[in-house]
């Protein structure tokens, strides 16, 4: 999974704001640390369910964490 996904995110910032490591967040949402890492680095696009779980674990909404890139019609 080396190609960059078409989904921007602020996961790293949101996670850091909560003082969570990748492993902490991974444990909370039931995936591996690598999965969180690949989502953060735009390598892997999470499913809707995982995106909702991540947003829930960070106490925010999916739209706050994940955005479409501007070239795909997302807000700048």
């Amino acid at each position, binding site marked *: *999974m*080396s190609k960059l996904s078409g989904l921007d995110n602020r996961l790293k910032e949101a996670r850091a704001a909560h003082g969570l490591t990748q*492993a902490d967040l*991974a*444990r909370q949402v*039931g*995936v*591996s*640390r*690598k*999965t969180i*890492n*690949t989502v953060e680095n735009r*390598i*892997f696009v*999470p*499913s809707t369910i*995982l995106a909702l779980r991540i947003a829930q674990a960070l106490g925010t909404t999916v739209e706050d964490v994940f955005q479409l890139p501007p070239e795909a019609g997302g807000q700048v």
Partner: protein
Amino acid sequence: MNIVENAARWRRGALSLIVIGFIVWRLPDMTIFQRFVSLNEPVSTVIELVGAIIWIGALIALLLRTRADRRDMSKAEFSALEDERVQALNNGAFRVGFWVMLVAAALLSTAGAWDWKISHDAADIIFILGVAVTLLHFVMRDAADE
């Protein structure tokens, strides 16, 4: 390294051994291989046997380890080992393996028109490529996701 990553690394090692064992088991029996390397009968049989033992041993070890992980890990840890990224990697690996098999079948059936020995090995080559490419694709992608 946490328990999930340790188990994932162990799984990659076992899958690599399965590929190596499978290739070592099947290769000496192929006509095209014997054209390049002349092995007498007992030697090639021993090599095939070693390959088969590695293949079966790694396969059984993988199954036993998976059962042990299911028993010893918490439910969350075990599901993290098979999370959606791993499932996506599995799907990608099967897709690549399928296309490699199709292309190999097309090329070998064409080449077989000129050389009957190639058609004699075609099934083995397609089978080996399908197994090896699928497993190695998964192993390399999983290892690269860091």
